[in-house]
């Protein structure tokens, strides 16, 4: 059972910094080495990557056109 082993807990801890590209080179190699061997963690990393893109898309709302007009009307007229 991979998920109760320490390497997987450690890999879980490294997931966010890994995807944010803020791990040191050594830590990056360590994470990648584990991911190469562990499908259990690999699936969860891939899910996290997809989730981030999905969240970003899901919550992006276009600005209402009326608001855009209101903002333009706030400009200070030239004298």
């Amino acid at each position, binding site marked *: 059972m991979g*998920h109760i082993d320490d390497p997987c807990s450690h890999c*879980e*801890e490294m*997931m*966010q910094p890994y995807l944010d590209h*803020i791990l040191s080179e050594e830590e990056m190699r360590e994470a990648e080495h584990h991911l190469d061997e562990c499908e259990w963690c690999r*699936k*969860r990393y*891939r*899910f*996290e990557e*997809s*989730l*981030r893109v*999905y*969240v*970003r898309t*899901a*919550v*992006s*709302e*276009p*600005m*209402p056109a009326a*608001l*855009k007009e*209101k*903002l*333009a009307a*706030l*400009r*200070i007229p*030239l004298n």
Partner: protein
Amino acid sequence: MAEAPSEATRIATNARDRVRFEEEALALSDQVYRVARHLANSREDAEELVQETYARAFRSWRSYQPGTNLRAWLLRILTNLNIDRGRRQQRTPPTQGLEANDYYLYDRLAETDGGLTDEDRVVERLSQDDIVSALSTVPHDFRDVIVLVDIGDFSYQDAAQILDIPIGTVMSRLHRGRRILKRELAESVVEEGS
């Protein structure tokens, strides 16, 4: 010796700089709104906040330093206004026990699906409403950094300046905030499944 610019030239230069500033700021309004929409508690609040931000920005355009990040400057105004509007009176998060581990959401989805095969498809089980609603339940301190970094695409450094907090705090809030968001999403999936 160069002649001092005439008053007319000075006024014309000033007007040109101001118009340029206003146009650049307006060109960023879609991006500002996208972030404001989730820093504020509702669509109406977000619209008001963006209007107040632009009104203030147009009044104090001289305090913007050309060549620096205008989007971050606008968001700094916006987050300050948002705080001034008293939203900090809302619930403050307890310090412990809010978030599950990072794999928690995937594991909950896997549990309710009886074995997942395609990780890219798994996220599609979450509806847009689930995500918007889960994000809105993340406490403000954590939500602010998620919205700025993960949705607004600001760097840690920009987020730290906008929120006036240390960069280490941005990182720790982001880390915890994402976990809180995933816990909320897991709960919505379990509720829908029950």
